[in-house]
């Protein structure tokens, strides 16, 4: 009797799928609380959509095997110290084989220290600052346009309308915004513009009245700046309330949110650089098309995807593609496949720098430039640059 029971038990266990062997564990932290909450959760949603689609299709194909994808994620509370602890835990205790980066350049820089220490591949969908990739790394892969290119489109389009623009740069004193504006100032100088003001403000600033008076005093007709969320929206509103007289305004991040239109007339004409919008016309070599991704996201989350969600999806897509190309989940083989990646996806072109001085920096993906415009009495976000993505002509000067 005992032998029969033992044989039956062995038979059952043999028939069960070997979960540990046929599962890829991807670790990440998400800012479910704290000031980075909105964009980080959006990024997670994109990644989860990818995971669910891959698993529904049977998993990632590696040779003759299919690997299901499992996420292990923790709340980093938008705090660097937590990122440090949690990525260590993800690697050592949760045995994550691959990592997705957290949201925001500051947290990515912290996570990168840990991932490189343990030699784990980490794909980044939410950290645009380029400095992280100049510190010598082997396993970091930035899937979004780097900060230095954020305002290239705005400068190119502005040159068509006002080649002698006088620009006030007013931006948050954080790594991302400083990197974006430092590069923008250099591009603006090359384009022949005049810089009349360069001011950074503490990220906790709530009132820009005196700063905007300074912008007015400088004689500027163009404004580039902002940081993340509340500060960018407050700048837009106060520029309008104080009748600052700007002909062109580009503000980082905040105007990309659909909530920005609640600013009403203050939002009209504001431009924002964006990593991706549902209106783009990219053709995909693999993975979903722009329309398919957008439709699937709307079906799952009852909301239009923003670029954070799109980047969250594409980090999974690029990793999947690399594993399939490598026919392996071995770190070195997948790294080699990622280094060779030159792919067109619904998100745009993705290709990584491979020289040791900039390894992993994104060298192909481009921003689009969106502008809030009145259409039939309602504010809508239109794509105004580049030509390939354009849905409307730019409105200049600001209404």
């Amino acid at each position, binding site marked *: 009797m005992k032998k029969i029971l033992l044989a039956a038990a062995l038979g059952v266990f043999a028939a069960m799928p070997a979960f540990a062997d046929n599962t890829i564990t991807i670790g990440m932290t998400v800012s479910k*609380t*704290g*000031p*980075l*909450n*909105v964009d980080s*959760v959006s990024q997670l949603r994109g990644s989860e959509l990818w995971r669910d689609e891959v698993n529904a299709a049977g998993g990632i194909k590696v040779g003759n095997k299919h690997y299901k994808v499992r996420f292990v994620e923790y709340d980093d509370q938008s705090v660097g110290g937590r990122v440090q602890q949690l990525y260590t835990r993800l690697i050592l205790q949760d045995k994550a084989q691959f990592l997705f980066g957290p949201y925001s350049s500051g947290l990515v820089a912290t996570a990168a220290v840990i991932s490189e220490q343990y030699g784990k591949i980490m794909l980044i969908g939410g950290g645009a600052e380029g400095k992280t990739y100049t510190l010598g790394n082997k396993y970091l892969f930035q899937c979004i346009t780097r900060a230095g290119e954020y305002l290239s489109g705005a400068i190119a389009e502005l040159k068509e309308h006002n080649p002698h623009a006088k620009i006030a740069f*007013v931006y948050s*004193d954080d790594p991302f915004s400083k990197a974006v504006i430092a590069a923008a100032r250099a591009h603006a100088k090359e384009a022949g513009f005049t810089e009349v003001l360069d*001011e*950074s*403000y*503490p990220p*906790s*600033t*709530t*009132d820009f*009245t*005196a*700063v905007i*008076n*300074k912008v*007015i*005093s400088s004689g500027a007709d163009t404004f580039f700046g902002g940081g993340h*969320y*509340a500060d960018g*929206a*407050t700048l837009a*509103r*106060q520029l309008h*309330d*104080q*009748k600052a*007289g700007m002909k062109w305004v580009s503000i980082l991040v*905040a105007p990309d*949110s659909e*909530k*920005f239109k*609640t*600013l*009403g007339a203050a939002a009209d004409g504001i431009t924002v650089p964006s990593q991706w919008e549902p209106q783009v016309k990219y053709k995909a070599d693999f993975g979903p098309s722009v329309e398919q991704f957008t439709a699937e996201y709307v079906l799952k989350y009852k909301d239009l995807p923003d670029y954070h969600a799109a980047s969250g999806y594409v980090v999974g897509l690029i990793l999947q593609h690399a594993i399939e190309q490598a026919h392996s989940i071995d770190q070195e083989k997948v790294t080699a496949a990622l280094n060779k990646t030159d792919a067109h996806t619904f998100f745009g072109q993705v290709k990584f720098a491979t020289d040791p001085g900039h390894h992993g920096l994104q060298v192909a993906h481009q921003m689009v430039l969106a502008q809030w415009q009145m259409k039939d009495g309602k504010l809508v976000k239109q794509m105004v640059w580049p030509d390939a993505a354009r849905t409307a002509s730019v409105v200049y000067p600001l209404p």
Partner: protein
Amino acid sequence: MLGLLASIFDGVLIGAVYGLAAMGITLIWGVMDVVNLTHGAMIVAGMFAAYLLSGAAGIPIYATLPIVLVGSFLVGVALYWISVHRVIGQPPLMSLLSTFSVNLVLIGLGTAVWGTDLFNVPASLPGFSVGRYTFPGTHLMAAALTAAIAGLLYLFLYRTRIGKAVRAVAGNREAAELVGIPTAQVLALAFGLGVALASVAGMLIATMFPFTVLSGDAYQLKSFVVTVLGGLGNPTGALVAGVALGLLEGITTPFVPVSWTLVIEFVLFVVVMIVLPGGLMQLLQRRRR
């Protein structure tokens, strides 16, 4: 020159609202020796109350002020009985922990309901312009309402029996009890008033700037600075210090990089702590003598 004058005037307008927010903290601190760490959350509550009442309920924005005042007063009284009453007279750490815990609960609830999304109250009033500089009507109205509320508070504290009771409890709680003042109820009333002042300040701030659930932190920090500058427990001092801080921001911003403004503010804060531990009002009181 005109730019400097514009910044100074604007600074005074905004500083008055900082002062109103700080009056909430200083009143509670002065009456019951409690540092109210729900202050930031109450400012945010006022912002959301203004947003929801004017948006969903369609009430004209400035008509929401009395509703926010009364509603937040009642919330403040409730908060007192729930989280503060038992820690009165206990070591200061107890009240800090108690109010901090409530703050975490409120911000957590707010984040769960609204995330950290952006909200904007589309308030607009005609202002006036001088040269290229415009003074928005919303800033002028916020400063005017602040002055009115500060005036009402003064009348309440110095011209009414209940106000006298509040001052008596602030001066000496035991003596107040000995003469028959129901101190627990007075403390609850004072806490409710402090919370109401914070929420009304939040409502006025929402008419000027967009906000998120986390916007209270920056104003809470400013409120503490203004409270200490004005003298602990002195609502008039808080208003004066708020205006002074706004004035400082207005004077310095045209001349130094914006990132230095906070540094200058905190250097002034440290200097005042050392030279005038009783705050700016101590200086004014010395001059009167």
